[in-house]
């Protein structure tokens, strides 16, 4: 009953009410998920189409092998490897959200917080150094989060593209002399996107749940880290609260996907 009024109880881990703890950390997780989503969708679909067009050529085999290995990598193993190579050896991408000096500036009262997303806020404040610092900290987690999912998306795109390319209307288009580029990008790709949009639901779940482990590995503030710490410390109120929050986002995500479905497939709109 209290949950309906927004009272999710007291979070022992966050030392504040659960709802406040979640909302305060949400921008960090959202920023991570957004930065991961775009490379996944862009690269995954692009490579999937490439692999399908060059079927059984070297490129196709190469992409498929990398994809199946990527899909077999547990995210925490991959994350530890990224951390080891890019932080321990090269020192490029440190863990955490911000460096200490940047954190102090961000926490100071006259620093404008409009979106609460670290990189965007830094640009709004005109602090390019903070922007770069935030970016440096987010690259590692984004690589980890996106690598696994583009492998998945690539496989779906490839098989769906192959199916479409064997359809009659593609043959018709080729027979009447439509340039190959247009056949692939206008006739085939749009139709091949339909199953891809369907699995986007699974991808949203994956990206969100993925943040739990990735925020722990890279020591980032966020809902995932909150949930993981609460689970280890048996803080039930926080665990239930974060799960409820994730489920709500999941349902919203599925709703958006249903709408996108109609955008990609006019047949859904008409029926």
């Amino acid at each position, binding site marked *: 009953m209290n949950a309906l009024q927004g009272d999710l109880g007291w979070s022992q881990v966050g030392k504040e009410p659960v709802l406040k703890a979640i909302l305060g950390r949400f921008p960090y997780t959202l920023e991570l998920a957004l930065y991961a989503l775009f490379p996944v969708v862009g690269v995954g679909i692009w490579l999937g189409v490439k692999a399908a067009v060059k079927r059984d050529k070297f490129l196709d085999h190469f992409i498929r092998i990398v994809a*199946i*290995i990527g*899909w*077999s*990598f*547990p*995210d*925490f*193993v991959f994350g*530890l*490897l990224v*951390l*080891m*190579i890019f*932080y*321990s*050896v090269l*020192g490029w991408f*440190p*863990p955490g959200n911000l460096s200490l000096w940047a954190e102090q500036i961000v926490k100071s009262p006259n620093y404008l917080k409009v979106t609460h997303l670290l990189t965007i806020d830094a640009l709004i404040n005109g602090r390019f150094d903070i922007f770069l610092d935030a970016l440096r900290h987010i690259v590692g987690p984004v690589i980890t989060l996106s690598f696994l999912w583009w492998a998945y998306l690539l496989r779906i795109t490839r*098989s769906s593209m*192959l*199916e479409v390319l064997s359809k009659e209307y593609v043959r018709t288009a080729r027979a009447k002399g439509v340039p190959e580029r247009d056949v692939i990008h206008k006739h085939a790709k749009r139709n091949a996107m339909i199953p891809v949009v369907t699995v986007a639901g699974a991808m949203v*779940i994956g990206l*969100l*749940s993925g943040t*739990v*482990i990735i925020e*722990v*590995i890279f*020591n980032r503030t966020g809902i995932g880290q909150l*949930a*993981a710490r*609460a*689970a*280890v410390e*048996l803080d*039930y109120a926080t*665990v*239930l609260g*974060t*799960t409820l929050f*994730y*489920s709500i986002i*999941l*349902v919203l995500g599925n709703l958006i996907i249903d709408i996108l479905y109609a955008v990609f497939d006019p047949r859904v709109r008409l029926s």
Partner: protein
Amino acid sequence: MSEPKPRSEFRRMMRKLLRNPSAILGFSLLAFFVLVAIFAPYIAEPVNPQMLDENGKPMRLDNPYIMPVITWSSEPIPPSKEHPFGMIQGRDIFYGVVWGTRTAFYIGLTVTLISTAVGIVIGSISGYYGGWIDEILMRITDVFLSIPFLLAAMVLTTILGNGLDKVMIAMVVFGWMGAARLIRANILQVKEEQFVLAAKALGIKDFFIILRHILPNTIFPVLIQASMRMGSLVITAAGLSFLGLGAPLGYADWGSMLNFTRNWILGTSGSSMTYWYAVFYPGMAMVLFVLAWNLVGDALRDVFDPRLK
């Protein structure tokens, strides 16, 4: 003159499977892991070299799945002759990787079998009877699907109290929906076939119709799906152990071994790959294990389901 048809069909499938290079790689990797799991007591003897019995020989461990503490220094120690994979938290990594194979098979097979069985029962009831039973069961499935798997497993594990068995219960509770949906869809198709109607007309009980006539005709896709899920289940279980929810401290489990490593890596900026072995060996074991199942599942799907390619 010639062999009966189903037999030769099976042979044709097997031949096709054996011609697929990724299938061969998958099956050989799997065979390797099975051998390691079976012969674990001979590959890594379950003895504690620190404790000698009256004959001066190392004592056997009561529970071989708890990795013996060899030294009290918790810092990772690089690979040496006695400890080819190095040591972490005073424990031999080689020992943990070998015995962890058993843990991985145990978790993966148990959870997959039970959750698939639950899925088959629920999906069969739902698909065969239809109507309001179907409606209720499918809405329950939707509710279970609306919680992200990792988080759901995390919550239930926390509520039950942490531990490996609790992780497995949680993964079964939130892992049956895929099989249920698949078997339901297949049953809806098969239900209208002549042989089912014939069996009904003969007055055979529903239970036997499902068990003897429908399931044998719908089970293959479910088995393929199950083999493809093995990999991700093992990843999730290891992930929970990595977060500290699964296996207890020092248990021979790949996920909890990597948990030891995390703090050492976070603490070392700019220094070279000092602790690489502590991530590499347990991590590679897990990647290869999951890869094996994914390759096998992929190959089975390609061979038995020509529609998907």
